């Protein structure tokens, strides 16, 4: 076990293992105080009391979506992560024959700074890329670039689905987003009959892995077999996604390792890098340049807004003058909106975060009376910025008073969203 930013990690880096059999989060029974916070924040009930004393545990990995909301909400630090590639990445960074590729997600740059004394949410994108370079990453790619690619693919898919309604073999509406690995596993596990509604698009990191080893290999003149791709995420469930055996379309396994924001902060500190004094560095342009539409992927409603910035122009044939579509922004819970598009009409959309909140919406879809064309779902309340791999809310484990207040507030917020 290794402690990183207040969270314990098992330091194994599994390869060739079926991720369905891995406990990505688990409870240390010696530290569990039986408070039940984890059970309250769990959307599936995978984490539950296992004995008369109320000690909790994840009962089976099949029921766990690996989101880690239990971990970031545990006031006693009793929940640890089961997988960490940090040691393996340090080895690969030292190996002169391996070209290590960095692929950080949008939300990482709004959480990482907190580990180095910046106020909550401070944008540290430039310093993050500089730190990755300093750590020895050879190719500085950016998952925000593939967030833009995702919009092109998923937005086009949505327009296709809208236009093919009524025709034979039409793919169903509403279309669900497929960026969030907890949500994708949730549909596969609890709503397999709605799999046809899931966008066939991989998530942004699911796209950057294979693009790095094909397009990136071509652009950088580095053979794909020498590449070691590192997915850097605000998320624990992305470790599960990275290990999915089907993600091997480049001819190699597309994603070689996945770490979260806390682990990146640990690596930067371990390497003795003075983060605050770093310059702002841009990623490699071809697989790195990104837009505002990409960076908002980290918020609940962000994918929806970015997709509408494309969908509006495709469906109406007109330029969207004001790209800021605030009607779909959601700090938590469920938000439905009707967005007027000229020459087309109103498009009904819905944004959901928190898995428990999806159930009534999905039942509507099952019964065939969902009013929506497009539904965005994020497992973590508020989206990836509040992901299970992000730095902890310092109030949660601070003083007894602050701790209790933070917990009361978090639960209050959860209840409000149901």
């Amino acid at each position, binding site marked *: 076990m290794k402690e990183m930013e207040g969270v314990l990690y098992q330091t194994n880096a599994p390869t060739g293992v079926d991720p369905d059999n891995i406990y990505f989060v688990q409870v240390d029974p010696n530290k569990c105080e039986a408070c039940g916070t984890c059970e309250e924040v769990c959307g599936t009930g995978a984490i539950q009391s296992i004995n008369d004393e109320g000690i909790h545990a994840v009962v089976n990995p099949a029921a766990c979506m690996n989101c880690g909301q239990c971990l970031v909400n545990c006031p006693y630090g009793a929940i640890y992560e089961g997988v960490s590639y940090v040691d393996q990445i340090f080895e690969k960074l030292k190996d002169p024959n391996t070209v290590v590729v960095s692929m950080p997600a949008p939300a990482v740059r709004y959480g990482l700074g907190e580990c180095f004394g910046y106020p909550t949410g401070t944008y540290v994108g430039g310093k993050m890329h500089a730190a990755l370079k300093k750590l020895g990453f050879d190719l500085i790619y950016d998952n925000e670039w593939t967030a833009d690619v995702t919009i092109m693919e998923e937005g086009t898919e949505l327009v296709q689905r809208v236009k093919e309604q009524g025709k034979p073999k039409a793919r169903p509406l509403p279309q669900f987003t497929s960026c969030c690995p907890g949500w994708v596993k949730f549909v596969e596990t609890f709503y397999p009959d709605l799999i046809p509604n899931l966008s066939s698009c991989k998530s942004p990191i699911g796209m950057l892995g294979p693009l790095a080893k094909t397009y990136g290999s071509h652009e950088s003149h580095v053979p794909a077999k020498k590449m070691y791709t590192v997915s850097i995420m605000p998320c624990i469930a992305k470790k599960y996604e990275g290990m999915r055996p089907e993600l091997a379309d480049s001819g190699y396994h597309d994603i070689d390792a996945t770490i979260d924001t806390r682990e990146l902060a640990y690596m930067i500190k371990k390497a003795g890098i003075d983060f605050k004094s770093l310059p702002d560095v841009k990623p490699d342009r071809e697989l790195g340049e990104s837009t505002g539409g990409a960076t908002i992927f980290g918020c609940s409603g962000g994918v929806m807004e970015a997709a509408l*910035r494309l969908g509006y122009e495709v469906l109406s044939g007109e330029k969207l003058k004001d790209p800021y579509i605030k009607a779909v922004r959601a700090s938590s819970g469920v938000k439905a909106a009707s967005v007027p598009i000229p020459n087309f009409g109103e498009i009904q959309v819905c944004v959901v975060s928190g898995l428990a909140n999806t159930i009534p919406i999905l039942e509507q879809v099952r019964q065939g009376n969902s009013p929506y064309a497009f539904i965005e779902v994020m497992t973590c309340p508020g989206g990836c910025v509040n992901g299970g791999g992000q730095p902890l809310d310092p109030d949660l484990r601070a003083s007894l008073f602050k701790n209790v207040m933070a917990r009361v507030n978090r639960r209050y*917020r959860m209840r409000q969203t149901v």
Partner: protein
Amino acid sequence: MRNIIKMTRRGFIRAAGLACGYAVLSVNMTKEAMAAALAFVEQRQKHVYDADRNNKLYEYKKSQDNPMITALYDKQDGFLHEGPCGHMSHRLLHTDYIDRSARVKALKAKGYKLAL
């Protein structure tokens, strides 16, 4: 009195914490602490939307305006020259999903109670 005895451990901690908080600090400070915790996620979100508005950080706002996206899908010599959802896109960027319900059904058959 019965209600207090029946109070769960969790409920007690919540009530005691609140009582201590109000006793030690003034009501206003307690409210501030509550607002701060509530705002934790919103603060991160605010920085995201600020960055989106910041033209120095993000010159372009729409994915389709990103020059590196235009280059990727360029009809002449783009890597994905067939455009979004073309053949190469489908090979590399799209996927199929797997019905994983069997193991959860088996768990329920064993008597585990899940939330759904």
